[in-house]
């Protein structure tokens, strides 16, 4: 039975608030290097993870935060891990791209496409040791051009593995538009490899939930893998401090140091004038697209679920306050731990 709208809303809201807190910590310099958030894909994750029960496995990529938050991993452990603290989820050894929770059979990888083979292995172990259990692979559409992911779809089909391949398609492979580097149709591709395949609006948690239910039932009953192709938007781009978004949001500051070398490169030597003009045109197009996408704003999955709620505004405010407090407590605990470390 489909859970109440509040249950799914709470999951998405919690992930969103958590990631907003992480963004602040990142901005303040508490978190080093790259940070890839699940912001914008909450509906996909919530709609899928709601079906996950103990013994099911999660093969995650570099955006593992939302699935782990929604599986109930302790928020403070996650933040401490992001901050590299010894009392983090992985003792500060993994960071946000390499999160592991053996209790949840959840493993992440920062290698694009690696969640495919990982899910196959989890599913193979389920066939032996935990019949009826499944493995979920989360990845983006950029990963669909990785050999290992295609190989794993074939393996999952050939062995009837209980795998659910969840493709979160935001249309951008890092900063490259996916349609420029992808041949054919992803649904047909998955079907060609023997998986059931379905396309859906990844900003609608209820649509995702229903599609995922079918996929989970099929997998649990031995019907083999399903490919869920869900569209979404990443309002923060590929990672915090996304280079294209920085340019379109603060063009004067960001372009100051770039324009002179770009112009010099485009006006001296190299290929023919027309080829160089074409390159410059492409760069302008690329920035124009990023700017347009940024201005349009995302169809926000969290906002979208609000009208579905059957509770009063006051009840919603209570729910949100409760989640906010949980997130704040986790942040405070992590900062205390960092301070204690000296």
């Amino acid at each position, binding site marked *: 039975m489909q859970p109440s709208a509040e249950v799914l809303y709470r999951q998405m809201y919690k992930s969103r608030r958590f990631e907003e807190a992480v963004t602040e910590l990142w901005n303040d310099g508490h978190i080093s290097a790259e940070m890839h958030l699940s912001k914008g894909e909450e509906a996909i994750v919530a709609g899928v993870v709601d079906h996950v029960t103990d013994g099911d*496995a999660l093969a995650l990529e570099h955006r593992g935060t939302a699935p782990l938050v929604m599986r109930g991993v302790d928020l403070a452990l996650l933040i401490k891990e992001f901050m590299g603290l010894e009392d983090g989820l992985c*003792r500060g050894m993994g960071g946000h791209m390499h999160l592991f929770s053996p209790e949840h*059979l959840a493993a992440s990888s920062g290698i694009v496409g*690696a969640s495919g083979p990982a899910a*196959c*292995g989890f599913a193979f172990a*389920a066939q032996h040791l935990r019949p009826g259990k499944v493995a979920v692979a989360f990845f983006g559409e950029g990963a669909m051009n990785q050999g*290992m992911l295609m190989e794993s779809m074939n393996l999952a089909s*050939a062995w009837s593995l209980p795998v659910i391949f969840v493709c979160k398609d935001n249309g951008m492979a890092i900063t490259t538009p996916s349609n420029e580097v992808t041949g054919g149709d992803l649904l047909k591709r998955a079907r060609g490899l023997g998986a059931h395949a379905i396309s859906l609006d990844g900003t609608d948690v209820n649509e995702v939930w229903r599609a995922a239910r079918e996929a989970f039932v099929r997998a649990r009953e031995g019907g083999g893998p399903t490919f869920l192709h869900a569209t979404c938007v990443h309002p923060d781009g590929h990672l915090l401090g996304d280079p294209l978004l920085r340019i379109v949001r603060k063009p004067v500051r960001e372009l100051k140091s770039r324009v002179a070398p770009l112009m010099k490169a485009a006006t001296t030597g190299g290929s023919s004038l027309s080829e160089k003009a074409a390159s410059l045109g492409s760069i302008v197009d690329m920035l124009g697209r990023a700017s347009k996408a940024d201005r349009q704003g995302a169809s926000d999955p969290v906002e979208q679920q609000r009208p579905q709620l059957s509770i009063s505004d006051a009840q919603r405010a209570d729910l949100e306050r409760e989640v906010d407090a949980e997130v704040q407590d986790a942040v405070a605990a992590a900062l205390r731990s960092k301070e204690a470390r000296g």
Partner: protein
Amino acid sequence: MKTMSFAGAIEDALMKAMSEDPRIVVFGEDVHSIRMNLFAKFGEMRVRSTPISESAFLGAAVTASMAGLRPVVELLMIDFVAVGVDALVNHAAKLEGFSGGRWKAPMVVRASCGGGYGDGGQHEQSLWGWLAQIPGLKVVVPSNPADAGGLMLSAIQDEGPVIYLEHKLLADYWIDGLADGGRTNLDYDIPEAGARGEVPRTWEPIPIGEAKVLRDGNDLTMVSVGVSVHRCLEAATQLAEHGVQAGVIDLRSIAPLDTDAVCRAVERTGRLLVVDEDYKHFSLSGELAAVVMEAGITAQFARVCVEDTIPFDRRREAEALPNVARILEAASGLRA
């Protein structure tokens, strides 16, 4: 006395382990045919043929082991690890570190290695130095049936990823399948003591990381692994006829490396000759020189290794691989 072939010993030890532990599964390319006996005994669920798809099934082996199985995953040839090496380098090897020690990947990657039968440089490599360089991976290379069985048991029992390499000149079915193909008119320089030999009445695991001194000698220490161990023993016999006492150490394991055994011997002899079928540069042989220097031992050093792409032509192949003549020449350079 009980004797077995090299391949028979591996199968016997593996069969015993699989009979005792239902978590052990074998999967990889062609396992229904190359592991026919295991398939017949344990069935489809435990001996499963994969697509020719190294990235997928090596990656799957990692998480299968994380989720409670003990996979022995078959690569046919270690050359093909290059196709799916991400699973080993970025996943299996990193798991224990990344998870803060909370999760491990008890998996065995089994593959053939080595040359000497004319298959060319894409199917005859050793690559153990390349793999051993990655922290978190263990690499074992047995040189005889007793070690082959014992090391297979310890590889399976190990809590982390172990790469188990069997030399094609030692395991008869590789030569039969890849080289002879039913013909009887071709010759290979197969070391008899490696291809068949005494084995224990019951298999016991041999600790990974313990080298074995096969021959004592006070003038010179030869350190080697795999088939080259036998070339060293032959060279040592010839050297003894000329009054030079050469010791031979079989490393058996590349990672971890038994540095104590090497240093103990070289401290005494002051001469180290590494004979390694793997590539010369940035390698096991270079590592051994560094180990001896780091220990503060003053020693002369020489090495006989593969230096370039292994030629297809069998005459040139024989010159490219470590052989007795090259070992004797290198040893003579150390005597002065």
